[in-house]
Structure formats: structure tokens, C-alpha cells
């Protein structure tokens, strides 16, 4: 392990998280002024970006394999705990994406947060987050990955609760932390299970690693370990629970929409581009384990598909611009899971490329959408309700165009980047499982629809807000433009673009199935057209009812309230309490009756008892007598138990003497 060897090993990869770490330490300890802090954090991330590009370039070759650099961390009881870094196409692509998008978001935040008094703290946390994310992406040990995973969790907690004076932000941070903790428990179990089964944490170790063919074969050979899964499948299932928590999949999705309480760049960085992607990344990283058991892949794809549909439905009924995007993120993460699960079923190894490809493209356009939303929110005087926007297009041309570009990519409009990646997901779902395909397709249709709805609310009509619209500074729009170019222009170099799919997993992925292409065109264009039809000409605003609500009142209320999931969690518990309260009241009245009856009896007997039994028998004979005895024996005990320290010590010494003498007499 040599940090300075840039030619033979990949130990230098450590520098990539090390730069943000240095920035974190600097900002944390020296607390410089905000502007300076931003400069430091940006410079550190720029350095990481350059190194990441080098790493990416190293993997972008036909013969690129898996490069590792391991070292022994500690040796305990004959077990070597090894840590290390790994560089393979997945890592390279993720590193480049995370640092690039991260840098753009950092630049954006430099402007966005410039008025905030906690700017230094903000950049300190952001840098810490980058440390965790970059370390997570490149670590070659499941344990190390878990450590960075937790750092990411901590950083997200700190960032969501960045405005910790605001009660809702503090609550959201707590909610995020606790909810993801449930998933992390799963991850931890999987990790321990893996170590128990293979006694290594390393992922790639020259044939001995957890993800390499030898161990996988050994693990798959153990049948029916738990829930009918094989050894690899159990580990994969537990790891998937971790991913569910982190990526906001269905049962544990509740934290992600609330996490929008953080500053908008945080939402862009964490809840769109990187952190939530960590779960998807974990599945992609541990994909050989998932491949070993088809049941787990099925679970992954079903959970993903249901999440996608559910979140897309909920997004229909939201009015908060960031909340819509948050649900759309949940939905897209679900689609990524579909890509991984169904892709794994359809193309085995190729599933990695399908899921991860969508992850990469999504990172760009979702970051763009969040940053654009941030610009719009910023422009509208920190108003987040889309009913109070409108007509933004004419006032903020650049930001709006960029936003629309991101929206098109999200809708999978033909020849944008989102189109290509989503196409692959649908294709693999088509091959793997019909139901999953149709669910995913309807989720995609809804995606196009609710994005159109949102855009109609925000951009069309007259401005409905209160204050004047402010223009964004150029430091905020520049990242938007860059991201917009990336979101759109990826489609133009399409043939070259498809190379990424092969690059990511090393397996050529089939690109064409006409039915799917037709379906996805229909979905994208149909969704947008439907949206324009319903929302294009309608009167929108706080006082006007939503056009959908007009016709579908009850189902829409469900959507507006996010299917009452939060309320469900509350209601089940609360109901239980109420029911038990009623029961107790009933019981109590019964008891009251009993008590009254008994009281009558007792008062009757009391006279008799008090005179003969109580006074004579109990008082004089038993009670006083016993008390007297206890008191006397207590006096005896008190000689020993007198709370006097040296008295105890003396007893100890005497005991030692007795033991010693006994030893001397009998030990022969």
C-alpha cells in the first residue's frame, strides 16, 4: 500500500476521499470565513475530480479489469482484517459522476449559501459527505464500505438538519437517520453473515474475495439457508434491506420526501445524485451475490417496480416543488432497482450496467432539476408551493430552459439521456417479467405526466406569488447549463453512448426490441401530451382546484396525502391505544362494582376483626413481637454492616488469612 505510487498500484485512490477529508478537518477545526471555506471545499473536490478522471480513464479501456490495493488493518486472534480500494469500471464511472456532479453542486452552493451564516459548517458537512460517498464507492472491503456508508448517513443527518433551529428540519433529520438505521441493521446483518460464511470482508482479493467466483460458488452450494434462499441469497437479501433503507424503497421511503427540509443543494447532492444512489450502488457492487439466487433478484425487481409506481402516483398529488422531485427520485430509484433485478434475471451480469446506467443519467438530470428548482425557489422569494408560482418561464429564461431540459430527460423524451437508460430498464423488464414491465411502464407514463403537470404549474400562466422574481447569479446558472448539456447531449452521441453499457459490466447488452421502443415513445409523448391536455389551458393556483381533483376527488385526496403512509403508521398505533382505553374503562366499571360489594362486606366484618383479631393477635403478638426480633437481629448485623470502609477491609483481610492458612495446611 503506497499512497505515492501512481503507476503500479491503485493505492493512490485514497487521495480521492483524502482531499475532502482534509477540507473537512480544516473547516471543522479552524472555522474560517464562509467564502474561504467554500474555496477550500471546492479546491479539494476539484483535486478529487482530477484524480477521479484519471481513475475513470484507467478503466475506460477494452482490457480494463479489477485493480485492487489491499492492506492489513488489524490482526485479531489469527484473523486478518484487510481493507483496501478497488478500481473497476463501476467504481471509475461512479467516482467520475460523484465528483463531477458534486463539484457542480458545490459551485452552485457557493452562491446559494453565500448569505447563510453557517456557510462554513455547510461546506464542512458537504465535504464530509463527499468523503463518505467517495470512500463508499471505492472501498474493497464490505466492512470499510459499511463504515463509509455510516459516514454518509451521518453527513446526510447533519445536512438535512442543517437549519436545526427549524423544528421541521430537526424532525426530518431525525426521521431520516432513524429510518435509514433500520436498513443499516439489515446491512450489518448481511455483513456479519458474509464474514461468518467466508471469513473475509474483501470484495476482490485475487480470487479469494467475497464477490469472486470461488466464494460465490461455495456460497451458492449451501441450499436453503434461510427462507429457502441459498447462502449467497441470504447475504444479498440483507444487503438489499440496507439498500432499501438508503435508497428509500417502499416500506422505508418515508424519510426521503421529508429530507427536503435541508438546503436545496443538499437535496440535489444527497437526495438525487449520490447518497440515495448508494443503495443502488450497493446492489450493483454486490451483484454477483444477487445473481446467485434468482428469488432475490425477483424481490429486488418487484420492490423496485412497486416503489416506482407508488411514488409516481404520490407525486401526482403534491404541490411542493421539491416534494414532487423527491417522490420522483423515489420512483426513479425504484426503476433502477427494476433495472438491476430484472436486468439480472434477463441478462445476468448485464443487470449491473442497466441499473447503474440509469443511476448515472438520473444523477445528472435530477441534480439539474433540483438545482433548477433551487434557482426557482430562490427567485420566487423562497416559495416552494407550485400553486404560488407560474409564469416563471418569461422571467427566468436560462434557469427555466435548463429545468425543462432536465424535465424532458426525466420524462424519457426520445433522444435525451433518460430515454436511453429507461429504455434499457423497460427492455430488461420485458424480457424478465411481464407484470413488472407493465408496472414500470405505467410508472414511467405517470412520470411524464406529473412532470408536465409541474411544469405547467410553474412556467405557464401569470405569476401568482407575492414578491418580485429575482434573477439568479451566474455562479448558480452556470452549473445548470452544464448539467443541462449533459442531460440532453448524451443522446446525440447515442451510439458511442451505448458503449457505457458494455463498459460497465463487460457484457454486450442487446439494444433493440421494437415493441419496447414503441411503448417507451408512447409513454413519453403520451404522458406529456396528456399532461398538456389537462393542465395546459386550465386555471391553476391556490384558489382554483386542481383539474385532476375536479374529476377524481377521492383517489386524488389519497394521492395528495401520500397514501396516508405517515398517517397509517400513526393511526395503527393510535387505534390500538384507543381500543385499549375503552377496554380499560369497561373493566374499571366492573371492578368498581366489585369493590363496592366487597366494601359492604368488609365494613361489616371490620368491627369484629379490629377488636379481636387485629388488636390482640396481630398487633400485640405477631407484629410487635416480630418487629422486636428483627430489630434485635438487626442490631447484631449492624455491627458488621456498619458502612465503615475499613471494617469491610478488615474482614477481607481476615478472610485472606483464613484462606492462606487453609492453603498452607492442606495444599501438599
Amino acid at each position, binding site marked *: 500500500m503506497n499512497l505515492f505510487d501512481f503507476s503500479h498500484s491503485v493505492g493512490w485512490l485514497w487521495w480521492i476521499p483524502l482531499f475532502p477529508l482534509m477540507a473537512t478537518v480544516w473547516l471543522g477545526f479552524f472555522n474560517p470565513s464562509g467564502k474561504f471555506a467554500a474555496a477550500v471545499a471546492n479546491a479539494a473536490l476539484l483535486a478529487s475530480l482530477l484524480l477521479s478522471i484519471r481513475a475513470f480513464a484507467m478503466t475506460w479501456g477494452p482490457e480494463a479489469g479489477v485493480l485492487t490495493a489491499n492492506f492489513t488493518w488489524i490482526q485479531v486472534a489469527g484473523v486478518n482484517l484487510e481493507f483496501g480500494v478497488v478500481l473497476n469500471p463501476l467504481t471509475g464511472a461512479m467516482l467520475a459522476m460523484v465528483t463531477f456532479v458534486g463539484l457542480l453542486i458545490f459551485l452552485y452552493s457557493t452562491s446559494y449559501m453565500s448569505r447563510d451564516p453557517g456557510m462554513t459548517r455547510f461546506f464542512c458537512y458537504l465535504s464530509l459527505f463527499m468523503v463518505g460517498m467517495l470512500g463508499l464507492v471505492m472501498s474493497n472491503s464490505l466492512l470499510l464500505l459499511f463504515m463509509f456508508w455510516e459516514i454518509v448517513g451521518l453527513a446526510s443527518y447533519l445536512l438535512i438538519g442543517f437549519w436545526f433551529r427549524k423544528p421541521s428540519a430537526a424532525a426530518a433529520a431525525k426521521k431520516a437517520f432513524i429510518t435509514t438505521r433500520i436498513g443499516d441493521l439489515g446491512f450489518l446483518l448481511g455483513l456479519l453473515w458474509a464474514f461468518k460464511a467466508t471469513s473475509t470482508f474483501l470484495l476482490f482479493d485475487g480470487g479469494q474475495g467475497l464477490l469472486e467466483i470461488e466464494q460465490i460458488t461455495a456460497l451458492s452450494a449451501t441450499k436453503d439457508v434461510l427462507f429457502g434462499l441459498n447462502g449467497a441469497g441470504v447475504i444479498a437479501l440483507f444487503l438489499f434491506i440496507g439498500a432499501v433503507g438508503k435508497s428509500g424503497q417502499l416500506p422505508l421511503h418515508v424519510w426521503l420526501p421529508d429530507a427536503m427540509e435541508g438546503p436545496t443543494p443538499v437535496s440535489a447532492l444527497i437526495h438525487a445524485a449520490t447518497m440515495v444512489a448508494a443503495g443502488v450502488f450497493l446492489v450493483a457492487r454486490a451483484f454477483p451475490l444477487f445473481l446467485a439466487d434468482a428469488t432475490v433478484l425477483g424481490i429486488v425487481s418487484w420492490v423496485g417496480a412497486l416503489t416506482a409506481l407508488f411514488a409516481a402516483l404520490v407525486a401526482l398529488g403534491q404541490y411542493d416543488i421539491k416534494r414532487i422531485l423527491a417522490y420522483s427520485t423515489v420512483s426513479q430509484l425504484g426503476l433502477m432497482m427494476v433495472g438491476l433485478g430484472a436486468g439480472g434475471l434477463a441478462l445476468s451480469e448485464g443487470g449491473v450496467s442497466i441499473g447503474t446506467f440509469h443511476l448515472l443519467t438520473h444523477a445528472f438530470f435530477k441534480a439539474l432539476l433540483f438545482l433548477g428548482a433551487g434557482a426557482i425557489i430562490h427567485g420566487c422569494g423562497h416559495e416552494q408551493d407550485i400553486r404560488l408560482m407560474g409564469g416563471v418561464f418569461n422571467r427566468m429564461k436560462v434557469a427555466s430552459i435548463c429545468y425543462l431540459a432536465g424535465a424532458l430527460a426525466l420524462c424519457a423524451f426520445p433522444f435525451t439521456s433518460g430515454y436511453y437508460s429507461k429504455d434499457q430498464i423497460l427492455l430488461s423488464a420485458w424480457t424478465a417479467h411481464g407484470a413488472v414491465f407493465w408496472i414500470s411502464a405505467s410508472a414511467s407514463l405517470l412520470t411524464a405526466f406529473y412532470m408536465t403537470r409541474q411544469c405547467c404549474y410553474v412556467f405557464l400562466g401569470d405569476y401568482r406569488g407575492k414578491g418580485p422574481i429575482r434573477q439568479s447569479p451566474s455562479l448558480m446558472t452556470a452549473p445548470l447549463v452544464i448539467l443541462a448539456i449533459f442531460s440532453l447531449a448524451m443522446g446525440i452521441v447515442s451510439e458511442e453512448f451505448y458503449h457505457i453499457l458494455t463498459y460497465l459490466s463487460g457484457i454486450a447488452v442487446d439494444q433493440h426490441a421494437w415493441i419496447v421502443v414503441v411503448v417507451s415513445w408512447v409513454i413519453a409523448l403520451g404522458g406529456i401530451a396528456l399532461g398538456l391536455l389537462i393542465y395546459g389551458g386550465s386555471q391553476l393556483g391556490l384558489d382554483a382546484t386542481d383539474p385532476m381533483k375536479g374529476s377524481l376527488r377521492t383517489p386524488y385526496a389519497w394521492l395528495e396525502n401520500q397514501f396516508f403512509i405517515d398517517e397509517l403508521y400513526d393511526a395503527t398505533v393510535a387505534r390500538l391505544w384507543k381500543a385499549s382505553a375503552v377496554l380499560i374503562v369497561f373493566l374499571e366499571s366492573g371492578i368498581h362494582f366489585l369493590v363496592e360489594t366487597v366494601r359492604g362486606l368488609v365494613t361489616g366484618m371490620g368491627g369484629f376483626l379490629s377488636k379481636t383479631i387485629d388488636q390482640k393477635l396481630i398487633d400485640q403478638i405477631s407484629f410487635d413481637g416480630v418487629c422486636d426480633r428483627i430489630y434485635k437481629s438487626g442490631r447484631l448485623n449492624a455491627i458488621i454492616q456498619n458502612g465503615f*470502609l*475499613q471494617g469491610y477491609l478488615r474482614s477481607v483481610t481476615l478472610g485472606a488469612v483464613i484462606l492462606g492458612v487453609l492453603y498452607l495446611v492442606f495444599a501438599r
Partner: protein
Amino acid sequence: MGLTLHHFLILSAILFSIGLVGALTRRHIIIMLICLEIMLNAANLNLIAFWHFSSNPLLMHGPLFTLFAIAIAATEAALGLALVLAIFRHYKTIDLESIRDLKE
């Protein structure tokens, strides 16, 4: 007649006993701590004596062990005295006779 292991063992036994007597009879809490130190030192003397008269003293096990013992004793002294200060602050006395909370 030269010095033998016996000399040191008996000396250390006597010193240990002196320390123990002090710990068991003095009422001042700091004196009690001092007596603990005396006992520890007597034990250290034993260790060093055994080492010196061992078959292979160049392995340095005796000094090593004593070094650790002294380190721990130093910690113990620091902690003990800190506790004495805490006790003094709480009870306003360091007379062992008056500190009887163990009775409860």
C-alpha cells in the same frame, strides 16, 4: 554470605504488612491511599527480586511487569486522589469514620 532472595522477600512482606496495617487502621483517607502505594511498592520489590534471581534475567520480564504495574499504580493514584477531592467536596470531610454511606 551474600544477599539472597530471602532477604528481599522478607523485607517486602514486612513492608506489605506495614502498608496493610496503615490501610486498616488509619482514619485519614489520604493516608489510606499512601498505604495502598506502600503495598504496591512492596509487591514491585517482590517482582524485581524474583526477576533478579530468576534463571534468565536478560529476558527482562521483571522490569517489564513492574513498569506496567507502576503505570497502573500511577493511574490509580491519580484517580484515587481525584476521588478523594470529589469525596471531600461531597462530604466536606476526609475522615473515613464520618463517611458511612455504605450503610444504606
